[in-house]
């Protein structure tokens, strides 16, 4: 056994041990980039209620005369077709949108960020809202709201977690 090989084995075992520790906060919250890069991944799939609540995005346009349109929902989720189990490039936009909404909600709820509108999450959601929802008539500006939902129909829960400013279309 070479010294390099032995060191590599020890490092690999240490890496696995650190990964186990990294599953817990606050360590994982301090270094989220390590998770994204797969260097120190977190493996808690669907154990943080992140799949249970649906995310809705609604947009409202402001017309040139200052009047406001109705809030109208836009698609945030992307229901795949059967062939999407093999080929699904459209998922990246929807998945990024979900993650951005989670991020923006966290920033808004914790109050850590004085200006969430400068964040990438906000920019991504805003651009998505501009892209997917057709402009109504003489609308000159648009804002969006993040709406968490659980359950469908009248028995479902629904609450607004964030409302943006108006932005020029």
């Amino acid at each position, binding site marked *: 056994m*070479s010294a390099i090989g032995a060191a590599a084995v020890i490092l*690999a075992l240490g890496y696995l041990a650190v990964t186990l520790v990294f599953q817990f906060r606050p360590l994982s919250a301090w270094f989220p980039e390590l998770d994204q890069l*797969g260097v120190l991944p977190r493996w808690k799939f669907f154990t943080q209620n992140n799949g249970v609540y649906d995310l809705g995005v609604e947009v409202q346009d402001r017309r040139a005369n200052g009047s406001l349109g109705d809030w109208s929902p836009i698609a945030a989720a992307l229901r795949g077709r059967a062939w999407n189990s*093999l080929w699904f490039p459209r998922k990246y936009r929807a998945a990024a949108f979900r993650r951005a909404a989670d991020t923006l909600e966290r920033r808004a709820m914790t109050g850590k960020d004085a200006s969430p509108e400068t964040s*990438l999450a906000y920019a991504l959601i805003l651009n998505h809202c501009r892209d997917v929802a057709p402009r109504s008539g003489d609308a000159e500006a648009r804002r969006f709201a993040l709406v968490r939902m659980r359950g469908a129909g009248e028995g479902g829960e629904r609450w607004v977690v964030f409302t943006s400013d108006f932005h020029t279309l």
Partner: protein
Amino acid sequence: MTGRFLADAADSLAFSRVLIGLWLVLWTAQWLTAADLFSHDGPLPWARLSRVRQRPLIGRLRRRMSTRLFRALLAAQLCIAVVLLASASVSVLVVCLALLIASLGGFIVLTGEFWSDGSDKIGMIAIAGAFVTGAGVLLGDSALALAGALIAGGQLTVCYLVAGVSKVFFADWRNGAELAAVMAAESWGHPMMERLTRRRPVAIAVSWCVILGEALFPLALLAPRPWLLAALATLMLFHVATALVMGLNTYPWAFAAAYPSATLLGRVLRSSLGWDG
């Protein structure tokens, strides 16, 4: 033992090479199609990404990016994946994997926090593990080859263990409510699965199958090889199901890429316990 282990490691690399290559061909082809997400009229243009103040060096790189350059880099990565599939040489494998680590790492760093998921993470780990194992085979260093199996196969084991155990501590997973809610959610769900999991006994049964299948995987490493292969096949069926139901189409390929390392690790563990066979 050393010679036999290195031969086993070389055999596992033959499978790793193909599985990693297949995952990357799919991944890269999808991203080539989706590259305009970062164009000037996409949801997150390079120009906007480059203005993130905490990342000045990365910001400079992002300012130089364009959709054309991004596609060129992805096309180069696709070529590397094809070379990986086509060549049986361990030297070529090691070089390709080193390039892929840089390429994928660069992609994740440049594109930021919203675009990679669990399959990207396990795929990166499979590549890193195969790289180290390949280096060990090339140098005739069995310990180095083992380190690669620990990285990929060990991390796969940690992944399943943590995923399963963390669900056990969640009451809604134990009573099936979490699974039913996920299947009913617009984001992740599926109409057929929603109808099925609305029945509480079905939801509980499926939930516990997932929990136990994941949490008990480490034990499969100690089982005879046919049992380990059966456990991996069962987990692969789970990933295929999530691809069909939830659109997580890259997960089966990425997780499969780490399976050869897991079988190699299982062989080492059984051998060290004197259970070889």
